[in-house]
């Protein structure tokens, strides 16, 4: 059979996972990890050019194409980052070789699961994949085996399982709604079929289904009040995983939500999913913005900022319309890149300072200029200041919203402003002021961090027309 890039995106991580599970030795496995992610990235990129026709189980269209490329790219950079990070963890003895082996295997499994969830053409399959992703991350979060890590993992596990259950119920309901129209069997779970026929589905069933899916997958997205697992999971797990969580897993869950939103959009009689997403989005935004103020742990701080931005993105997609959707996509991409870059920086900072307490780090721009300025640049980006990409998305979002729904825009801007104020309050005590904590030389890999930031910067100033056309197309799909 001819080698199909789509299967490649799935196969490579799977095989790599198996190999890594078998292989001992940090050096080889880490390299292999990078190699695998590189290959996956190449496959994903090739999706731009040759795209297979949607099959029964797998589907690639513009929408999830975006997500796949983003996922594989961040997966790649993160693996490069973890090369140095995990090495340091080994030296300091926080992780023992068996755990490192486990970590690498799990990393690939996670990649596999996320890719599967993205390109699955079957709502059941997607559900399974997301559950798999969740369980792997649970294991990774608990990998340090400390009180806090176990507690975080446990919390994540319980809440995640409930979310999974709710999502499953929603999925079943969708099937129930589809069956009378499409007939029994797999066809009634295929995106391609569902979207075309959704107009005839039973609206009441769709509504209930969406409520469950919103809560189920919303838990993974980390929307308030379903967010509880997110900060601890980010804070206690190894930093590469925090980066992947914030940068990717949340997106994947969001992707699922978007799919179902499209489904409901087709059905005129069903309730409009927009307002629900807008409400949850604004709730998460404002809530997270206020939560930022009392954070003492640097990773938890940025975890909450992820909640905030997920809220913004959900808001944008909830508003809908070409401009808002475009802004949402852009914001999501920029947030993935920026937030993972921030976590790369934070990981190294926590390693050199030997702590995650903000109170114990200070004057970073003097002790570690590169890390310090990278962090500042990241925070500036995440705060939506030019010349970085998020400024554009927030510009489009706020202006387009204010013309349509001024009050919502007011809430949005209020949340953003409160969040920015909090972020810089913390940044001041981290990057400026009297130097505190160790000023030992950091052996860090700056490449992934700055690669991300460079991309974000470039996007803020100039976006290639091809990408724009792509995004606009997707925005059109989202309606």
């Amino acid at each position, binding site marked *: 059979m001819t080698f199909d890039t789509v299967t490649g995106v799935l196969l490579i991580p799977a095989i790599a996972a198996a190999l890594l599970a078998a292989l001992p030795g940090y050096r080889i496995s880490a390299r292999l990890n990078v190699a695998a992610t590189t290959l996956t990235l190449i496959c994903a990129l090739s999706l731009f050019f040759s795209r297979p026709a949607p099959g029964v189980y797998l589907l690639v269209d513009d929408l999830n194409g975006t997500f796949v490329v983003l996922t594989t790219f961040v997966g790649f950079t993160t693996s490069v980052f973890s090369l140095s990070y995990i090495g340091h963890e080994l030296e300091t003895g926080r992780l023992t070789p068996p755990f490192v082996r486990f970590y690498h295997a799990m990393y690939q499994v996670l990649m596999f699961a996320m890719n599967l969830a993205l390109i699955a053409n079957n709502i059941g399959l997607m559900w399974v994949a997301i559950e798999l992703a969740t369980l792997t991350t649970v294991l990774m979060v608990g990998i340090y085996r400390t009180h806090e890590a176990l507690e975080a993992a*446990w*919390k994540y596990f*319980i*809440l995640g399982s*409930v*979310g999974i259950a*709710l999502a499953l119920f929603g999925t079943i309901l969708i099937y129930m709604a589809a069956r009378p129209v499409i007939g029994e069997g797999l066809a009634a779970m295929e995106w391609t079929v569902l979207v075309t026929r959704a107009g005839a589905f039973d*609206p*009441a069933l769709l*509504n*209930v289904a969406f*409520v469950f899916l919103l*809560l189920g997958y919303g838990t993974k997205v980390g929307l308030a*009040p*379903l967010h*509880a697992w997110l*900060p601890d999971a980010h804070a206690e797990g190894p930093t590469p995983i925090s980066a992947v969580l914030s940068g990717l897993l949340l997106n994947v869950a969001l992707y699922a939500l978007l799919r179902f939103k499209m489904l409901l959009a087709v059905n005129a009689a069903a*309730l409009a999913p927009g307002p629900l997403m807008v409400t949850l989005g604004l709730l998460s935004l404002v*809530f997270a913005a*206020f*939560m930022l*103020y*009392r954070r003492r742990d640097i990773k938890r701080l940025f975890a909450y900022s992820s909640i905030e931005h997920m809220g913004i993105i959900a808001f944008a997609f909830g508003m809908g319309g070409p401009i808002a959707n475009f802004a949402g996509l852009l914001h999501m991409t920029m947030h993935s890149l920026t937030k993972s870059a921030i976590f790369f920086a934070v990981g190294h900072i926590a390693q050199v300072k030997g702590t995650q307490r903000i109170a114990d780090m200070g*004057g970073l*721009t*003097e002790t570690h200029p590169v890390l310090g300025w990278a962090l500042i640049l990241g925070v*500036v980006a995440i*705060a939506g*200041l*030019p*010349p970085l990409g998020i*400024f*554009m998305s927030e*510009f*489009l979002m*706020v*202006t*387009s*919203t*204010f*013309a*349509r729904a001024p009050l919502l*825009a007011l809430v949005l*801007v209020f949340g953003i*402003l409160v969040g*920015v*104020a*909090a972020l*810089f*309050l913390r940044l*001041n005590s981290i*990057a*400026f*002021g*009297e130097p505190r904590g160790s000023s030992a030389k950091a052996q860090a890999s700056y490449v992934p961090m700055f690669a991300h930031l460079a991309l974000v910067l470039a996007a803020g*100033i*100039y*976006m290639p027309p091809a990408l*724009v056309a792509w995004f*606009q197309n997707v925005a059109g799909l989202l309606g």
Partner: protein
Amino acid sequence: MTLTIALVCAAALLALAAVGVIMGRFPASTRVVYGASLIIAAVSFIAGLVQLVGAAAPFGLTLPLGVPWLGAHFRLDALSAFFLIVVDLGAMSASLFALGYGEHETAPRRVLPFYAAFLAGMTLVVLADDAFTFLFSWEFMSLTSWALVMSHPRVPENVRAGYVYLVMASFGTLTLLFAFGLLAGPDGLYTFAQMRAAHPSAALGALALLLALIGAGSKAGIVPLHVWLPLAHPAAPSHVSALMSGVMTKVAVYGFVRIAFELAGPPAWWWSIVVLAVAGLTTVMGVLYALMQHDLKRLLAYHTVENIGIIFIGLGLSLAFNANGLPFAAALALTAALLHVFNHSLFKSLLFFGAGAVLTATGERDMEHLGGLIHRMPQTAFVVLVGCAAISALPPLNGFVSEWLTFQAILLSPQLPSWGLKLLVPGVGALLALSAALAAACFVKAYGVTFLGRPRTPAAERATETDRFSLAAMFFLAALCLVVGILPGFFIDALAPVSTALLGARMPPQIGAQWLSIVPIAASRSSYDGLLVFLFMTLSGTLAAYAIHRLASDRLRRAPAWDCGYPDLSPATQYTAMSFAQPIRRVFGTFVFRAREQVDMPPPGDMRPARLTVQITDPIWDFLYAPLVVGIGVAADRLNRLQFLTIRQFLSLVFCALVILLLVLAIWS
């Protein structure tokens, strides 16, 4: 053509910023960066001058940057040309000054890149011709200047200043975002051309103007949004303070003018009421705050607030006249405002340079530790004196001209039909007059305590004259102050294209007037001739001097000052800044700042010193900002409890969410 040059200059500045990052560690980089930015600013200054004086037709340019389907639009018309001139003049003098001043910088790597980028940002703001590019450059300008404020991050005040500044800046930008969102409409017509074409409804335009007033005003420093300004401007290195105070606030004024006069559509008369009221308040509050200060740079920063108020008075009047179909009066008011923009950028930069020179010479910003510097640094003392006279609106210097024009505009306003304005404008005029007098008082204090008298500290005694670059920059600006003061006609005529473009009317040409005097409306009504006044004063002064020295004695003896019978008075017995301001504090401060004085006078025979303590409260911070801060803190604390719930409680959150949504469903359908 000129636009292309200006854009190229901006790009060059950005490149220069990159250079500053890369070779910042070499000591030579200071000279390189400042020298290069001086040249670049000069080039772009010439471009702006050609555009404005040549009265060339405005033309635009679109680059494939920014919002993809929109592109980055740039346009150089009379208004932006004028502000480009202001920006580049400030940039030139600041760079020249910094050629010397920058040598004292301890951490040049924290200054150089952002300095160049800051200049580029300001240039781009005045060139931008669509909402995105405008706000992009606007916020970029704020960001870079924030970085400059943070250039000495070990000082806690600087960190706090930078924080307040950044938050206020984001607030302003988001408000402007609203304004543009309003003007662009739901289908996103972001270019200014489209906004000009689309005529917004009166209510919509009014809202946009209000938002612009808040957004641009918070950057310009109108009361009560000024709180960041006196913190941030002094915290930056002095040449940057000069730029922030003298130029960046003007860029903010540009933003307001652009929106209020061009984009917000035909004005309604009551728009101006808001602007005028705020402006009057700003003027007086600014100068009163300044009078209470004894930190030299902070005092100057508060005077920026005052002058911004004066500028906005002019703009408000212009709006009022324009709305009531009095284009020529509107042109007069607008010209007055813009001329004051120019003048203020001159003497405020000059004064901040002086403060910087004092800072490098003595390491002191607190006036109470200075004094007698006129003996150690006579040249600096001279130019700063010129600056003080100019900002106090004393003839024949430039500050007086613009305030005089503003007064003339006020005197035209009885023609306004609406009662609200009839009652408001005289009050504003009174506030303007009051602030002018208070400003003079304040600069007597500032100059007298800093440069005159006897040195109060060893640092002040050991002061030495500053370097030649700094002096060159300061003399350059001082000369300009005098030139604008005695030949205002040329500058007023240069502003004619701007008012023609914005209002369709201009002031009568001034060049033709006899003896180079300026005649705003008609010779029979009012006229002023700075040149003649200057000549008369010099003539009669020298005449008197000559006569007396010739006919009477010119002998001179040095003797100790009259000590009232108490020998060897220590410098501590001089009047300090606080004591100098005491009468005015008693008159105005008691109810504005709730200023209180406690005198602790020991009984006779008790040897401990008597002390006088003054405490002053900032009403605006206390009533506006403190509650906000507290409120956010409380909310954060309340919500923070949610971080510490048990898993079960979190589950119940999920459960409640589910039930609520289901209920919604049940009720909804």
